[in-house]
């Protein structure tokens, strides 16, 4: 198992699981529909830090953890489409070599249908 170090927002909880950070700029606010997804973004090892910084600057995106060349990322967006668009844009960030979806919760969107 690779060493894990935190690189961006989100303090670590007592059990080692990061606490969610405050909602980032551009993400839906309370009361609005929200789709929450988490991803593992793979990077060129030497660019992991730079990629983390660049991703964290994107609206609704938080980087919670770095494990070697892998970043643990969440996206909050108003729809599945917006989430997918955001995730799909990651591959254009220099140093990103792979984008893996782990979890996507769209219960708000389902309820709205």
């Amino acid at each position, binding site marked *: 198992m690779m060493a894990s170090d935190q690189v961006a927002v989100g303090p670590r*909880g007592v059990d080692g699981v990061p606490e969610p950070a405050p909602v980032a700029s551009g993400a839906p606010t*309370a009361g609005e529909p929200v789709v929450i997804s988490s991803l593992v973004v793979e990077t060129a090892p030497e660019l992991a830090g730079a990629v983390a910084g660049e991703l964290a600057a994107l609206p609704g995106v938080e980087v*919670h953890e770095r494990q070697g060349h892998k970043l643990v990322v*969440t996206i909050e967006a108003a729809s599945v489409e917006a989430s997918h668009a955001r995730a*799909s844009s990651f591959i254009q960030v220099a140093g990103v070599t792979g984008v*893996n*979806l782990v979890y996507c919760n769209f219960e708000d969107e389902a*309820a709205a249908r």
Partner: protein
Amino acid sequence: MELTRRKFVKTTAVALASAAAAGTMATMAGCAGEPAKGGAQAPAGQGDVTRTVGVCRFCGCGCGVIVEARDGRLVSVTGDPENGSNRGLNCVKGYYLASALYGDDRLTTPLVRDDKATKGAPGGLREATWDEALDLVASKLRETWKADKSRLAFWGSGQQPIVEGYCTAKFWKAGLLSNNIDPNARLCMASAVVGFMNVFQTDEPAGCYADIDEADVFVTWGANMAEAHPMLYSRLTARKLADDRVRHYDLTTLRTRTSASADKVLMFKPGADIAIANAIASYLVENNLYDKAFVADHLQFKQGTENIGNAFEDGYDASETGQSVDAVTSITFEEYAARLAPYTLEYAEEVSGVPAADIQELAEVFADKSRKVLSLWTMGVNQHNRGTWMNHCIYNIHLLTGRYARPGDGAFSLTGQPTACGTAREVGTFSHRLPADLLVAQEPHRRYTEAIWSLPEGYLDAIAKPGFHTVKMFRELSKGNIDFLWSAHNNWAVSLPNLTRFLGRGDKRGVIDAFICVSEVYPTLSTQYADVVLPAAMWVEREGQFGNGERRTAVFEKAVDPPGDARWDLWMLMEVAKRVLAGEQIGGKDAFDVLFGAWYDPEAGAFRGTDREVSRAIWEEYRTFSNPALNEAAAAINESAGLKMEAKQLAPYDLYIDNHGLTWPVREVDGEWLPTLWRFCDGPQADGFDEQGVERYGEHDRAGGVSFYKSAGKRPSVVFRPWEPPAEIPDDEYPFYLCTGRLLEHWHTGSMTRRIAELDRALPEALLDVNPADCERLGVKDGDRVRVTSRYGSCDITVSTTGRTAPPEGIVFAPFFAEETLINLVVQDVYCPLSKEPDYKKTTVSIEKI
């Protein structure tokens, strides 16, 4: 979403991704929520959320997922950490797994066409009751069956779940005594199947996805994994990142996203891959770089019928050449070496255009036993006028160098569809097959099947002759020789080659006259040719099973109800079978009851139990094929005919749910069921090796630590196959090769993915990728509309020089997903004479600006 809920969901999201990144996700018990029904650690469920285990619907990788539903709708999808195929990770298309169910135009009621003249355009279908639709389908099928059963057909799919495929094959083969059943897997995996059978006498990859994590060198042959197998490609790039000595060679006819990340691209002229492979084999033999112990312990050598021409004509299969294509004779190693000798590096360069030095470099990679080499291939190899031969040629190299069935060191034929292996191949929904690799033409195989299906001895002798393979089926349909066609889980009106002929746009109009039933979830081009459309439950709207490309069988549980009057395909099949077989007998008993009475009550029109109970009951019968001890008569035939049916042993149904999928053979050892990752490779069963199989059927301590106990004489066949040119060669009239394929956003014909707005926007149009130099010669530029014309037909399409692929001069590429473009109007229906799989990669075309 309330803030507390939002916080909880997000905490879960982070925890799951963190664990997935570390590869520890499966051990995260108790982090959030209750286990899913299948025993899964699950995401953020609460209250009335139900949680079920599933398998992704979109491609051939077969990734496990966990889905949550609330109030009858899906609310989350998570990569399943306990499914060994993907270990909690999905590609970004996973965002839309649930959306695929919720397109605006889902079919929710049966439809009937009253006027055949309305075929081929939207409209002309009216709503009907299930009774009317089923009565109509059954009456047309029965009428055809009674009149001339050579004029009926079923066209299935590598997306049809296992028990549904099993029941369809049983109805067609035992109920109707017809072999006119074939799946769309004929269009993607048939060459791989025939290759496996010819070389190993068993249809299965020996390796598994974990090979990717252990290889030192990757060789992709005709495979755009980056777009067609995204999860596996992610695993490949992860392996490269983990060790900078890992290398990737990409053999291709045009640059793809896969080429973009390869260390070396060997760009060859279409069809020349066999010359390259033979040159590599020749170099290894000539320079004494092959594995002599492996050759001595394991291999036999053969050559086969050559100069086999091409299947242009409908009568090819019945011709003298067509009848001889499967013939092989044994030769010595020295004779094999002599056959290879003309394939010098220089000759291969001349044929392929690949520099001799590059071919030599790749040959030396195979010769270097200090490194593990993994070959991966898909449609470039299989959809080839010599597809079976090219499969042979890859195995030849790996067998000569002792690189097969060993972790990270093997040849891995990738699968194109989620259950092409599980249903089309393992169940055997092909025109020449019975379940579990058995063949209709083999008498012991028919006897064995009769025993398990409770049929009188000799009953299946009526189907000893194979039926129509896919191209033959649609060629006969176009000529007016098919009166009844039922298709399910596919969209033939977009995916077949030579649609100009098959859609009646040429001189052959059989598609209009025939009665066609289409089971579907959305309106497609195929439903425009249907006389009846049956609305189907989709994916997790019923329980089903997929068998993926690494021999992993997995169950997807029912999570939600289907919309409107859409019903389970299995129910439709039972209702049609009940009507068609009414009054028929098998061995003096009611025919329907003999075949399906154990799980369906025809009087009540209902299954005898829940989806789970029905699936389990069917599975347990199917599983008997690989567990002959469960049936005394079958066990006796297995023993007397030496079938070794238990060598592909499958486990009881519920274990697949409890374990989130298992790779077969799953061996019962002292009451435990143990899966196998590396088939034929000796080693501890608990670590995934085939200890039990080698112990029971094979030999320990053979070269490479492997034993090919399923092969004749325990010796796989190295078969010399010569290079022969493509069916068509570019000329003045048709100066370009047209290659077609799939791109990331759209699964096959886009019937699901084009309903998803974002995917549709991401790739809204099928473009023709053209080399800039060719554009200049043609006087066209990016964005121009052109007409592409072949000997078969033409279509109009937009030119791109900045598309997803970058073809060299003389080759153009188009994806096949778009029905408004319908590139398959242009594509040849010539097929590999051995596998009958069409060559979608090498149609010669002209291009003119319009």
